[in-house]
């Protein structure tokens, strides 16, 4: 994450330094603040001391020895706060704790531009690590850089994921009190409320850890002790017990960061300016208006820009008591972020104001008040008065234009151009929803079923037309039951000649269909010539030959008895069934 090209970094640094030196802010007095990343640490862990110097450019100062801490690393960064017009140098010092106890990082003095600046001392509590316990190879915790906030103040919550190996799988799942408005701004905020994570390293109990820091902006909307957390984070680590083609498999480890509490203070109720509308942060004001030569009743567009650090989306324009001779309309607004953390940006308003009488000389100064949570005071910014030349309106009567959303666009008193009421009661037409009725949905299958039936029938006919063998098989299968019925009738009539003619014909048809020969060509010889080579069993061949011989015998010695004829029928049926079951081999 931090592996940028060093030449690019160096160039960027030179540009920033040049910008900072040339920027008018250099005339501002430098301010120095010292902070630590957490006030309580376990013995053996590292705490980061950050010293931020605004409005100056100095080399990294060294630190004297600090009781209870060992300096194990340093770093620096250089940023430009374009909103305040300041270059900000931040020097960081990683301090390893050595023993439990209450320690104080003392005040440091720095010489910046010939002036001596002193930081505030910082108390750090070092607590005992449980005896004999080594830290887990992965754990997570919730960090609130500013545990005390004011209502409406923007801040951030961080989830620190410590791990020695593995890869974070996804953004944390964080629970928060409903008194917070959580998440970044932007179109994808609903999908992912987190900012881009930062990766760093830290030492805990003399063990090196990778640390991924997930950040999410938050704004408190109610006072009290509000809880943040727990947060669930998952990590993908190599699973040495299983291997895949590409190497060791991975398994997911879930960890929970414990809940923490943020103390949210209500805004002071003393000395609240009249032009305070809830803005909390640190802002600057830009104000302009045009046109300035106009007639009474013509609109002027006032452009107000609120720049700075704060919850921009909740900033509203305050009412302007000094604008009592102007009619005002609801403003439109848009936000432009200048900071990836959503802390800094500009909210631009456009508000239409209309002078109500001729002769007005100026649009009075626009005033905007906010609460500064760092200094704990209300501040009021005032724009310049805009000189105006307001002439008399050319028309008579109300000169106010009908502008969107304006109070003069409010609904008029009940008019008479409504269509008149209905004289008759009408029918009570309660129509149940057709789509919710199962029978209605079921009936929709009817046309589909009809069409599918016709389609399948056509397909079947086409298949028969293209397959004569199949057609013949079906014809024979249809003829056999009819012929058997006829056979029984002839047996009952003791008509031996016809009976055996039918038997012979049945055999010929069935054998012919099986071996794909014309029925007339089937004789007893076919049994040896075709059926047996085609895989017919001995029993089947013997049965067929027996029936053939019965037919031959009947030509010369006709059977007269009904019982004798009836006894032949089951044999024929059996032979035909076996023939239908038999499939000739292809060879």
């Amino acid at each position, binding site marked *: 994450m931090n592996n940028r090209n060093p030449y690019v970094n160096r160039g960027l640094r030179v540009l920033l330094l040049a910008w900072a030196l040339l920027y008018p802010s250099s005339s501002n007095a430098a301010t120095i603040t010292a902070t630590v990343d957490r006030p309580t640490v376990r013995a053996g862990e590292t705490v980061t001391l950050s010293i931020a110097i605004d409005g100056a450019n100095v080399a990294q100062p060294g630190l004297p020895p600090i009781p209870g801490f060992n300096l194990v690393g340093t770093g620096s960064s250089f940023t430009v706060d374009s909103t305040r017009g300041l270059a900000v140098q931040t020097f960081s010092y990683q301090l390893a704790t050595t023993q439990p106890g209450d320690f104080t990082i003392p005040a440091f003095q720095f010489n910046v531009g010939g002036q001596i600046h002193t930081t505030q001392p910082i108390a750090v509590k070092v607590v005992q690590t449980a005896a004999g316990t080594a830290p887990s190879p992965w754990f997570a915790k919730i960090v609130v850089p500013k545990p005390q906030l004011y209502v409406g103040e923007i801040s951030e919550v961080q989830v620190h994921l410590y791990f020695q190996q593995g890869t974070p799988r996804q953004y944390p799942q964080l629970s928060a009190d409903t008194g917070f408005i959580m998440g970044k701004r932007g179109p994808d905020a609903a999908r992912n409320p987190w900012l881009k994570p930062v990766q760093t390293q830290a030492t805990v109990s003399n063990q090196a850890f990778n640390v991924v820091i997930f950040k999410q902006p938050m704004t408190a909307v109610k006072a009290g002790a509000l809880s943040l957390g727990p947060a669930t984070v998952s990590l993908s680590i190599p699973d040495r017990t299983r291997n895949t083609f590409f190497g060791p498999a991975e398994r997911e480890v879930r960890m929970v960061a414990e809940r923490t509490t943020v103390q949210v203070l209500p805004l002071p109720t003393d000395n609240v300016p009249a032009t305070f509308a809830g803005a909390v942060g640190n802002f600057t004001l830009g104000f302009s208006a045009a046109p300035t030569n106009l007639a009474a009743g013509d609109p002027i567009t006032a452009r107000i820009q609120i720049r700075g650090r704060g919850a921009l989306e909740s900033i509203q324009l305050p009412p302007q008591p000094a604008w009592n001779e102007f009619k005002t309309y609801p403003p439109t607004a848009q936000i432009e972020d200048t900071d990836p953390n959503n802390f800094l940006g500009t909210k631009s308003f456009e508000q239409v104001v209309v002078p109500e009488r001729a002769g007005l000389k100026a649009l009075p100064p626009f005033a905007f008040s906010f609460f500064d949570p760092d200094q704990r005071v209300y501040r009021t910014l005032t724009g310049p008065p805009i000189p105006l030349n307001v002439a008399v309106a050319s028309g008579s009567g109300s000169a106010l234009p009908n502008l969107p959303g304006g109070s003069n666009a409010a*609904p008029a008193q009940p008019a008479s151009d409504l269509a008149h009421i209905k004289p008759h009661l009408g029918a009570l037409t309660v129509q149940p929803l057709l789509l919710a009725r199962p029978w209605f949905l079921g009936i929709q299958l009817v046309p589909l079923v*009809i069409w599918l039936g016709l389609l399948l029938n056509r397909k079947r006919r086409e298949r028969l037309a293209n397959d004569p063998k199949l057609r013949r098989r079906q014809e024979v299968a249809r003829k056999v039951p009819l012929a058997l019925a006829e056979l029984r009738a002839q047996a009952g009539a003791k008509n031996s000649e016809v009976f055996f003619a039918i038997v012979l014909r049945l055999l010929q048809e069935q054998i012919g269909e099986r071996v794909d020969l014309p029925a007339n060509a089937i004789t007893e010889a076919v049994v040896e010539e075709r059926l047996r080579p085609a895989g017919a069993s001995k029993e089947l061949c013997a049965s067929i030959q027996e029936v053939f011989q019965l037919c031959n015998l009947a030509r010369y010695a006709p059977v007269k008895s009904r019982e004798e004829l009836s006894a032949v029928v089951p044999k024929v049926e059996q032979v035909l069934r076996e023939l239908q079951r038999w499939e000739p081999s292809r060879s």
Partner: protein
Amino acid sequence: MGTVTIVSTRIVAALIAVLFAAGLVRGAAASAASAAAEFDHANKLYEQGKFAEAVSAYEKLALDGVATANVWFNLGNAAYKSGQMGRAIVAYRMAERMTPRDASLRANLQFVRGKIYSDGRTQIPMWKSMLRLATLNEWTVLTVALVWAFFSVLACAEAAGRRYARSALALLFAALLGGMALAAAWQDQNTTNAIIVAKEATVRFGPLEESQAAFQLRDGAELDVLSSKDDWLQVRDPEKRVGWIRRDEVVVLPMVSAARHIGKHATL
């Protein structure tokens, strides 16, 4: 005024809840003659300029289960005349579900919407207006008819051994269009809307009284309901602004599906 609004809102809420839970089914119990007499009485109050009393009379009819399109229409007129824009919109939209092509109803609905904001921000998009020209059942019947016609052509083609490819394709296309319109109408009718019935309603950034105000809306503004939490609804206005509003400042439509989606507080 706020208390009056809330109490009045709850009365209408109870009215609509009772109506939709049971009244529609049992409405036939009221005799046609007495219902017609009550309707004439309410009309008379309206003609005499007693609009608030007319509103009560029409509401009573609806409570008795006589919720015809004409009762809703007249209730909309009376509500508008008594300065209750939001309730007028609610009544017209209820009537719209029964007689969507009633020209006078559409004119009145458009007229009242135009009175809420004069800049056209309350105008319904053209596609939505066209969808609302028919009821959901009418869209259903149209789509089903096209589907039947399509399969009939296919069946005829099978039976006659001929191909009616152009007719089948045209009907398939029409059936698909009908299906899409039906789906859109279903979506439209089942999207939970909230209509402001307070004179001025504040939409906030969070579901808390302490949350900062995001923007103000007038009586009659129509919103989409996105979610709910306790006594608050998350809403989106036609300008795509999102925020939270108290339940007692709105009427939620449609009542039945709203009750299903957002629980016991679905009505006002």
